[in-house]
């Protein structure tokens, strides 16, 4: 062996937030995939729309609008604890992380509840016509995202209280927060499309 250049990494940290973290990239790519799916399904909505004379064929009833507004409100509200939780994660403040994670989980469960209300309030079924299919499709897709988020949140609640909480879990908490932003962000265009259409018809 002769002369070697050496890159020493002994003192590097064992975790990092944001785009420095591979898991952040993984979830970002998942968001790309799911975001593309939402975008395509919305395109399907508008594609189908321009082929049908009367649209919506069965307008979502007033109840649907209330339910949709409730879901939107709950989801938007859940952004606040998520944001605060991320802040606590950067500082490594476990107590605050726990508190906000519980709050956020409660809100996500509430959103799941209003979502069930939404489904029940729809005055048409998925097999009524193409409009019904695409609206149910959009809602179901978002419910899948929502459900995945709820399961993750619940897992984190258990982990945070049961321990052992490792330092790298701070990053996982942050990435989970980012996914939750996506759940909320993905819902907004869907809500605007489904209910806005009925509202401003």
């Amino acid at each position, binding site marked *: 062996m002769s002369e070697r250049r050496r890159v020493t990494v002994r003192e590097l940290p064992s975790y990092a937030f944001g785009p420095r973290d591979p898991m952040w990239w993984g979830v970002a790519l998942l968001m790309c995939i799911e975001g593309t799916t939402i975008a395509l399904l919305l395109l399907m909505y508008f*594609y189908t729309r321009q082929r049908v004379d009367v649209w919506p064929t069965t307008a979502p009833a007033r109840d649907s609008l209330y339910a949709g507004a409730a879901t939107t409100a709950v989801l938007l509200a859940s952004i606040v604890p998520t944001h605060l939780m991320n802040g606590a994660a950067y500082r490594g403040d476990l107590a605050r992380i726990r508190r906000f994670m519980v709050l956020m989980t409660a809100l996500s469960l509430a959103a799941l509840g209003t979502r069930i209300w939404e489904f029940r309030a729809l005055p048409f079924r998925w097999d009524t016509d193409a409009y019904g299919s695409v609206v149910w499709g959009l809602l179901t897709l978002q419910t899948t995202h929502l459900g995945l988020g709820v*399961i993750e949140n619940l897992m984190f609640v258990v982990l945070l209280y049961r321990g052992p909480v490792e330092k790298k879990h701070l990053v996982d908490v942050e990435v989970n927060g980012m996914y939750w932003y996506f759940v909320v962000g993905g819902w907004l265009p869907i809500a605007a499309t489904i209910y806005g259409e009925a509202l401003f018809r």
Partner: protein
Amino acid sequence: MTSTVATESTPDSRSEDARLERELTDTWRLCRGFAGWFCETNHTVIARRMLVTAFVFFALGGVEALLMRLELARPDNHFIGPDRYDQLFTVHGSTMMFLFAVPVMQAMGIYLVPLMVGARTVAFPRLNAYAYYTYLIGGVFLYVSLFTDTGPDTGWFSYVPLSGPQFSPGKRVDVWSQVVTFTELSALSTAANLIVTTLKLRAPGMALNRMPLFVWAELVTSFMVIFAMPAVMLATMCLALDRLVGTHFFNSAVGGDPLLWQHLFWFFGHPEVYIIFLPALGMVSSIVVTFSRRPVVGYLPMVLSLVATAFLGFGLWVHHMFATGLAELGQGFFTAASIMIAIPSGVQIFCWIATLWSGRLVLATPLWFVFGFVAIFVVGGLSGVMVASVPIDLQVHDTFFVVAHLHYVLIGGAVFPLLGGIHYWFPKLTGRMLDERLGKAGFVLTFTGFNLTFFPMHLLGLHGMPRRIYTYRAATGFGPLNLLATVGAFVLLAGLLVVLTNVVRALLSGRDAGPDPWQSDTLEWSVASPPAPYVYEHLPCVAGRYPLWEGIRDCVVEGMDPRQRQVLVTAALDAAPDHVYVLPGPSIWPLLSAVATGVTFITMIFTPWAVPLGLALGTVCLVGWFWPRPPHEPLLAEQP
């Protein structure tokens, strides 16, 4: 950054290295025993399994093709019959596209990308294993259904309404749509894995502009997968819903549109061609550089061409739909885009020619396959320009001309480079050398057989022979050319058998290869053949595009703990060391999760109860997969 770059003299570090090797071997040890077989997450092992699986499916697809050729060998032939023939061509197409071409290219990526960028493994080894098992389950499911007469029979793109609930009764198309969903899930997971591996696990110093072209190709391909595959997953989901719960996405009678299926399918389907083709271009670049013994001419144009192809690839799906009666303006736009894609392809071809021209050629078998690729691909490209023109497309749509064209593009554009790549990387994969004489004989036979099989199809198509017919009348005059094609198919088979013989012989008694038999330029040739589970004893750091030609061994990373499965995370652009990350070890959960996915998807065909079942299984798997197990890493200070 806390890392320091220093040049210092090293004392005798032999014993130090031995201890390091011992500890690394211990930490990265492969699982043992029967159970260990199911837990393994090492990327070389998974990639090898994926390669073998893909080639098994290639062989099965080939057998189906031969059966079809036998059926068509002479007019009024009835030895397979319409029902089986429909299943054969559908399963053949689906196998080749979904179970062979995409997975095999990704397997090469999974195997080579970490090696090439100087990483110990991929970013998410468990996800990698999960992707493999999902793919395997999907593929096996397709073949079980074929052998039980439940094979899909509506063509590999399963146009509605033919594939819809009314005209495709039973479960055949459901099988198809679920198989596609399986393989897309696998492809998406692998693509995400490859992207993160490429962007975050590169050796220090390997900035983006120093990445090997093959890595670039896999990176671009993976991004295409991320944005293209959701379309087909959505499409097959909608098809499944239409068939199983009576939605109306594609039912024109109540507002749906069958053309929507074609839009969604080809929005994936056309990029799919490039998803198959771009990694092949990466392989060609690797081979051309190595056997020209010089840096590639036009690295930047090459990279830009890859990226441009990816973007353009999304803009021409409609040229598969010229016969559906679209607006004139749209036709013009997509014709222009289709012709434009010839530009980046042309740039790459000229760069290779320039590299070869100015290099010192070593005429090894891999290079022969590259020459074959160029010849065939040019023919395929020319017929592609022909069908990009609407009037010609309308004339030859759904004829054997299209069959000829797509096989020239796909076999010429992907299989020949792949075979070249296999010949090139075989020493790295196995530690053995392939026989050059057999290799060249294999090339000559496959090249001849391929052209004998598919060139006559151009003429058949121009004479009006439609695709997807199980027989034809003698009076059509299609007989002689079809017979020629069938003979050619057997010559092609002979060629592939020679390649297989070569592989088997090499595995049994091949010459020992050593780390770098070809005197190549990229990092994978700096490690043992086949690589150890931990791949690199010392992680490398690089200072140029051709590290092995530029003296890689002069720079190493130090300070990694060999007693943990540590990987070095670097910055996405300039690959500066950022942090050290501990990967989870082997686990049974990827397999269990894949089985849960499989059970859910397959049960879904038969009952909607699969949804709650899948939810329950999925939750269990998620918890099992991510639940932290000792030994724990540094704990957060304030614990309950």
